[in-house]
């Protein structure tokens, strides 16, 4: 049987041993015991402590960096600036626009300028205060709309547009002519901070052969390897990067920061010969790292009286801050999803990713989707109101279904479950009963219920080459190691890969071990982003596992004197399918393999088919499969104060195939609460380009006392490319809560807030304006 056919056979099995089961993660024990796993926990005792001196202004020329006083301090072993960089002073995720250490100019608050390394943290911090920068301040561009003006100040010499793209489908002029009703609104969203509980940290030391080893909190070890090598002027094979257990990431740890922490530590290590560790303080982290892009979205939507959408015209503008980071990719996803999950015959979307002198925006779970869905789903309810059509009916009328076309004219396949997700969310939430009940509320506390729908293109799509390498090896003691440079940081995704491998091999999960992602022992495998570990990594895992299985069966076939195709692996034995009594222990075959020098190391490589689409108008297949979902939110609004209390969220998501429902629920629940914060309370505020609230005391993420009741429904419409039909679930759950809450608030109060977060102040004044 060919490899692909064999995998297919496992995938289509009627019942699975492990797939779909609630499995404990492989690293769960270590975590509940509180073992030292994170970068700071495993730092060498003699590691130097590194502090970074950062810009305290949003836009300025650097006239002088005064380091003498710091250099003279006892206990200070190195003070470095850009001139000390051995290789190239660059640390950027995509566009070559960002230095590691600023030397002539700073374009935002928090840019690294100088580095101090000392024997202890107090000395390093004290020395850092003794470094002063002479600035010549420049005026600053503080909003993306400002940055678009033709006479705007420039953040970078070649203009303020980091990326522009568009969607053109049909002819919007014609579409609006056909419309009976046209509405236009502008929506705004805010900077959201990832607020991972572990701030950024990276450490490095020099090995005896002069090569560098870095260990850090990160999502993509190979990006860090490339970045560190460039800064140090070394070839990448002289830099080894290991991802330590990472305490939350959400996207920003796949951008510039891990390169910064490791490259800076590596410079210090190289300079001093000692290990060095750079751990960000929380406020430093919140100022310096990438955040979710704020967007300004103007949507003009046309529809006929019967509710059918005829045209959508959108201007989508993001603020990527002083450096682009992955802004140019975020804007692509936003551009393609800007209409929401609906059939719109005529679409015109223009999307701009703009530079400003605010701090950097970059990758963050959702990657443009939460922003455009807030706009699109708010707009749908506004349209429903204008048409005097029930918001559910309007959605059922226009939603994507198999056989329809997306905004990029991609044909929607049979795996489109949007209708089922929507129906199940409506039913489980008791929508109709609640809508009626809530409409009878009197007094200052009014309840409301709202809905939002989404679609989320899986994996990289147009963002890059979508491939993965997963290595597996069976040790002499019959333990199976899964090793890959794909990472996890709370998602449980790599445990999920082990589960896929276990199912494919027919072995119990307790035999599996995970190695730490290490550039020295893994093949470069693309970034861990875009919820692609299960979809793409899972396929590579199946391939590796199948190869191992073939080897084992081949050796067992000699042992049992029959064709490998007649054998199966079950209950830790390799046995004849037709006569299970004829069996040999799995352990024994492993020993045989070792005796016969049959290598039990295999690598699975999978690359997704390229998305074929025409670039100028973005028409074609933009993503190979989509996750669909629907969220119903119920709120209680204190109409005297504007305070919004979330009562219940009902979320139905299509996981394709939930490899581990426990993990899928975990992602849905966690993503929903992160989306709740995004919708109601979180905003990283820039005043004059300076972050006003870089503390967890002034940046409000939900606590255990802020969460609503939650009901999660997992729908499964197997997708085209994931293992066993799995679809991405890391990001989608953040896309909708803000939109659903917004619509629920309108249901409760009759007035809408058009910009996030939906704070009490905004809700109250929206109500007052209406009166």
């Amino acid at each position, binding site marked *: 049987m060919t490899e692909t056919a064999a995998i297919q056979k496992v995938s289509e099995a009627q019942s699975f041993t492990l797939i779909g089961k609630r499995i404990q993660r492989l690293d769960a024990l270590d975590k509940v015991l509180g073992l030292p796993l994170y970068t700071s926990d495993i730092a060498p005792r003699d590691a130097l402590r590194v502090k970074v001196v950062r810009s305290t202004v949003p836009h300025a020329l650097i006239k002088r960096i005064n380091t003498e006083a710091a250099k003279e301090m006892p206990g200070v072993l190195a003070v470095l600036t850009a001139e000390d960089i051995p290789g190239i002073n660059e640390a950027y995720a995509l566009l070559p626009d960002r230095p590691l250490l600023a030397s002539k100019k700073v374009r935002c608050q928090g840019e690294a300028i100088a580095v101090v390394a000392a024997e202890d943290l107090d000395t390093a911090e004290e020395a850092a205060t003794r470094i002063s920068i002479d600035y010549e301040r420049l005026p600053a561009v503080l909003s993306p709309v400002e940055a678009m003006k033709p006479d705007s100040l420039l953040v970078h010499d070649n203009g303020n547009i980091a990326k522009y793209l568009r969607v053109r489908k049909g002819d919007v002029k014609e579409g609006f002519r056909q419309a009976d009703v046209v509405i236009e609104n502008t929506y705004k969203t805010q900077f959201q901070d990832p607020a991972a509980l572990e701030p950024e940290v990276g450490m490095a030391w020099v090995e005896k052969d002069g090569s560098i080893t870095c260990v850090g909190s990160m999502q993509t070890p190979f990006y860090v390897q490339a970045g560190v090598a460039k800064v140090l002027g070394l070839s990448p094979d002289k830099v080894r990067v290991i991802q330590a257990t990472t305490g939350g990431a959400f996207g920003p740890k796949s951008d510039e920061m891990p390169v910064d922490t490791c490259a800076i530590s590596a410079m210090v290590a190289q300079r001093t010969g000692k290990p060095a560790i750079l751990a960000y303080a929380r406020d430093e982290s919140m100022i310096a790292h990438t955040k979710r892009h704020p967007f300004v979205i103007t949507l003009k939507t046309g529809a006929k009286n019967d509710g059918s959408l005829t045209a959508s015209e959108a201007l989508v503008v993001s603020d990527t801050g002083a450096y682009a980071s992955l802004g140019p990719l975020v804007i692509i996803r936003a551009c393609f999803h800007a209409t929401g999950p609906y059939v719109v015959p005529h679409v015109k979307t223009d999307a701009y990713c703009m530079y400003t002198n605010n701090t950097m925006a970059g990758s963050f779970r959702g990657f443009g989707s939460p922003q455009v869905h807030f706009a699109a789903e708010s707009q749908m309810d506004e349209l429903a109101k204008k048409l005097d059509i029930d918001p559910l009916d309007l959605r059922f009328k226009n939603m994507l279904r198999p056989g329809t076309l997306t905004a990029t004219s991609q044909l929607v396949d049979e795996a489109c479950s949007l209708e089922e997700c929507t129906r199940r969310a409506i039913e489980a939430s008791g929508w109709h009963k609640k809508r009626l009940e809530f409409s009878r509320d009197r007094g200052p506390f009014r309840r409301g219920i709202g809905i939002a729908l989404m679609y989320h293109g899986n994996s990289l799509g147009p963002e890059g080459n979508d491939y993965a390498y997963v290595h597996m090896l069976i040790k002499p003691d019959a333990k199976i190691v899964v090793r890959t440079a794909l990472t996890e940081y709370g998602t449980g995704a790599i445990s999920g890969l082990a589960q896929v491998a276990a199912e494919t091999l027919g072995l119990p999960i307790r035999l599996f071990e995970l190695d730490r992602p290490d550039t020295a022992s893994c093949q470069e495998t693309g970034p861990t982003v875009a919820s692609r570990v299960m979809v793409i990594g899972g396929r590579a895992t199946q391939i590796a596992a199948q190869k191992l299985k073939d080897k084992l069966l081949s050796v067992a076939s000699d042992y049992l004197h029959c064709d490998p195709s007649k054998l199966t692996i079950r209950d830790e034995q390799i046995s004849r399918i037709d006569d299970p009594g004829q069996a040999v222990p799995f352990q024994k075959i492993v020993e045989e393999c070792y005796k016969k020098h049959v290598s039990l190391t295999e690598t699975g490589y999978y690359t997704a088919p390229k998305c074929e689409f025409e670039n100028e108008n973005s028409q074609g297949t933009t993503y190979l499969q989509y996750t669909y979902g629907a969220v119903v939110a119920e709120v209680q609004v204190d109409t005297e104060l504007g305070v919004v209390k979330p009562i219940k969220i009902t979320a139905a998501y299509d996981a394709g195939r939930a490899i581990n429902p426990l993990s899928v629920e975990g992602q849905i629940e966690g993503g929903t609460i992160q989306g709740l914060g995004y919708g109601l309370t979180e905003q990283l505020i820039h005043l004059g380009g300076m972050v006003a609230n870089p503390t967890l005391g002034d940046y409000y993420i939900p606590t255990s006392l*802020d969460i609503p009741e939650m009901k999660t429904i997992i729908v499964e419409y197997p997708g085209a490319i994931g293992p066993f039909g799995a679809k991405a679930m890391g990001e989608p759950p953040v896309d909708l809560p803000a939109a659903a809450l917004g619509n629920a608030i309108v249901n409760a109060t009759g007035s809408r807030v058009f910009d996030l977060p939906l704070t009490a102040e905004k809700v109250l004044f929206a109500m007052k304006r209406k009166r």
Partner: protein
Amino acid sequence: MPLNLDDALGYLEGNASETLPVAGATDLLPRIKRKQIVANNLIDLSGLSELRYIKRKDGRIKIGALTTIADLEAEKDSSAWGRLVSDVIGGFGSPNIRSIATVGGNICAASSSEDLLPIFLILDAKVKTIRKSGTREVPLKEFIVAKRKTALGGDEILAEVSFPEPNDRSACSFQKLGMRNILIIALASAAAFLEMDDKDSRIKNARIALNRLEAKIPQRAENVEKEIAGKELNERTIDSVVARLEDDLALTSDFRASSQYRQEAVKVLLRRALVNCQQRILRK
């Protein structure tokens, strides 16, 4: 690390200008670490158990400065004071912070973020400070001079806060507005104390404390208080009190909220505090 109060005071006598007393450290320690305060000399008061008490004497409740917020939980009951404690304690910091934050620390931090200040202001509290050579008592509203500034001398420790125990013709209420339910400093807050006359028909005494004022510390709204003393406790009185507020309020604007919003919010919070007091009086 003083062995006892006497020891502490003796130390302070000699080292007043350089020494920073610290108790729960919830406010001070992060600021020391961020180098916002220079702390060459610290004196740790957390072990002074003689200052950790809640006593009742001569119609007054006396709370030692080292009493933790968690210790105050024992005071929750259906008395006027007990209900006020219930109002404030659930939203104060977090359970972790309540274990170590002290009453004295909250008072000395002297800012709009300190929830106990409005409470003690409406109770007409006095603070007792102590130095080697003796004690003095100062009304709380005079003790809090400005944001982060108290009348505490360098050789003194805040020893106690005390106030007349509200009688059973009184009721208190504290209303706090924040962006989430815990670990949150007040966006705005209002505290009210009402004491009824013998026949329970008119307000004998009213004290109101508002927060997020331009002064950046909670303060008594004395003009408003004068307005409602002697009136009947009904909806019309409450309406007039709230209306009176308009002229008096000078609220701060900051990145958390605008002064216009705070204006609206404080009116609502004060109304709710007064209505709550009314309900608590009627329930007796």
